[in-house]
């Protein structure tokens, strides 16, 4: 008798972790329209990317997060499956966080590749079971290429501090600039488009003292501009989970990476930053990292030709978070004006293009079909593959 094909992935989330999962989905929904699920030996990874490929988020839930975790794997009758579902559908299951907390005891997630169904089953109070059958699409691995070790600057603060900081900016604000200012202060400022008439837009700037952060290791005078909307989604999650948020960034144009770490959860948010060819930034202090030549300005539009060879499906054991680079503390510059004076206007990149196009596109998107390792023709690579973080 033929054994019935077992589901590829099966996991059960119980108790308070159901709400954590729900919040993670909410956070991912701020990024993109599709949710990528990837069961691995290290846990279940949920990922999303936005349409312009300038924002990527991943939540890696370790096996210990689950009451039961079976990734599936190369065994007879089991297949490792990477799939994506419509974000709207998946979010619908976890739509109401308060009701998740109050009524749901367990959440079962089953991937049934033969039936092309992702089953999310909520076991609620009073014996009620809600089963959601979502269609999924098999897909390539979604992986942004980034490396926190390549970042010249990093900051770590309780999420609350950053949440309290962004509240001063309007919900509709697109981009914000984070800068290392004099006296060790870190500033956040709304980014004003070049096209906007100077002297017509309100400029808001917030200063945080160094001691509000847990660690500050920033290149003096460094600054980056990124999209606030996607960041807010992560911030909400971080605040609720009470985890400190680490920001890794480098020069303008290179992505900024936000990370949250916990024993059972690893979160990454990678955002493209506005490139700033005419800024007179100080180059980062010597850190031994050789920077690849900046790509041309057409790059942002040229997504199709920008393909990166993907790793094959080998997973390193025991891969943890790369150590946060430490750098000598930034020294204040006496020549620089104090925060009370207005800073120099930041020059934008390409004028006249809609905001999201100015951002460097990141990473992405092998068109390899699953199960066939091989390299797509490698075109220009902005950054080498990360050291097997997943």
């Amino acid at each position, binding site marked *: 008798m033929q054994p019935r094909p077992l589901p590829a992935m099966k996991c059960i989330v119980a108790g308070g972790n159901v709400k954590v999962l729900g919040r993670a989905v909410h956070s991912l929904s701020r990024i993109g329209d599709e949710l990528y699920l990837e069961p691995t030996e290290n846990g279940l990874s949920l990922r999303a990317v936005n349409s312009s490929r300038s924002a990527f988020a991943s939540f890696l839930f370790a096996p210990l997060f689950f009451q039961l975790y079976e990734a599936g794997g190369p065994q007879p009758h089991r297949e490792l499956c990477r799939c994506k579902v419509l974000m709207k559908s998946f979010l619908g299951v976890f739509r109401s966080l308060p009701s998740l907390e109050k009524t749901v005891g367990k959440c079962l997630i089953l991937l049934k590749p033969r039936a092309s169904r992702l089953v999310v089953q909520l076991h609620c109070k009073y014996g009620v079971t809600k089963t959601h059958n979502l269609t999924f699409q098999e897909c390539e691995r979604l992986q942004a290429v980034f490396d926190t070790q390549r970042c010249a600057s990093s900051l770590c603060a309780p999420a609350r501090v950053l949440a*309290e*900081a962004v*509240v*001063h900016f*309007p919900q509709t604000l697109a981009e914000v600039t984070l800068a290392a200012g004099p006296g060790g202060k870190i500033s956040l400022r709304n980014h004003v488009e070049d096209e906007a008439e*100077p*002297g*017509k*837009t*309100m*400029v*808001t*700037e*917030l*200063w*945080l*003292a160094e*001691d*509000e952060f847990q660690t500050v290791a920033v290149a003096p005078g460094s600054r980056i501009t990124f999209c606030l909307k996607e960041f807010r989604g992560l911030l909400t999650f971080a605040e609720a989970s009470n985890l400190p948020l680490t920001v890794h960034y480098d020069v303008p144009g290179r992505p900024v990476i936000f990370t949250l770490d916990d024993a059972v959860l690893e979160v990454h948010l990678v955002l493209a930053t506005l490139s700033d060819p005419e800024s007179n930034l100080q180059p980062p202090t010597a850190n031994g990292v050789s920077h690849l030549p900046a790509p041309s300005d057409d790059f942002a539009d040229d997504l199709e030709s920008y393909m990166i060879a993907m790793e094959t499906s080998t997973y390193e054991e025991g891969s943890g978070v790369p150590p946060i680079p430490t750098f000598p503390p930034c020294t204040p510059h006496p020549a620089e004006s104090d*925060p*009370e*004076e*207005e800073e120099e*206007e930041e020059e934008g990149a390409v004028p006249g293009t809609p905001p999201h196009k100015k951002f460097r596109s990141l990473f992405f998107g092998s068109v390899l079909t699953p199960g066939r390792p091989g390299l797509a023709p490698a075109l220009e690579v902005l950054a080498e593959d990360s050291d097997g973080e997943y």
Partner: protein
Amino acid sequence: MRFRAKIVDLACLNHFSRVINTIAKLAKTCALRLTVSKLYFILSDKVANGGVSMWCELCQGNFFDEFQMEGVAAEHNEIYLELVPENLSRALKTAQNAKAVKIKLTNKHCPCLRVAVELPSLSSSSRMVTHDIPVGVIPRRLWNDFREPSVPDFDVSIYLPVLKTMKSVVERMKNLSNSIVIEANLSGEMNLKIETDLVSVTTHFKDLGNPPWASEDGCQSSTQSRDLESMAEARIDIRKLLQLLAGQQVNPTKALCNIVSKRIVHFILLHEDVSLQYFIPALA
């Protein structure tokens, strides 16, 4: 030309923010007139505003702990600025638990009102937030455009009903019609009417009371000899009325309107330390 002011008291800050929120709901852009003792938010009746005009007056001493103003010239010790009140409203919105709020007129790259908010924080130093609100300096030759409007020669003056009630009535009427008729008489009766092809709706208010205006050499004789039951009416844009009613965050001490039949409705809302006048012209 210099202007510096500071608010330290949270209640004053809250009150000032509420005034600004009301102004922001009434005007997209307006003039801010600063004198030694008062602040005025002024909207003059240009065609672009749909003919509405606004005059809001505050005593600076009721809000600011420090207030220093030096006008454009010694004999014209005033400053007139053009600004977007919504910006000021936004700047103050997240400052409600501030240790201090300072407002300063600056001119780095362009004239700005810099709102500097000092916020409490767990660290050794406070958090500073600055908002640079771009403003335009209104030259002296244009100051005449912003003179205080005189009280019109009205037909009827009447106290308004409770604003919350009036607002909810007008809100529902807004869905049915673009214009609304306000009519009132000297017997304390007011009607709000809308009329369309399909439906007409009237809400009646009574016992509102009529404010006693001191007659100055009989110039108000028109009202004194007026038939108490006779209604003075004006048809106005319903959205403008709703803007006024929706913007009120606190119940005024006194709220009244003066109706010049078929010409204009003049609203006066008085709080302890703020007075607001709003003129809505009648539709043709």
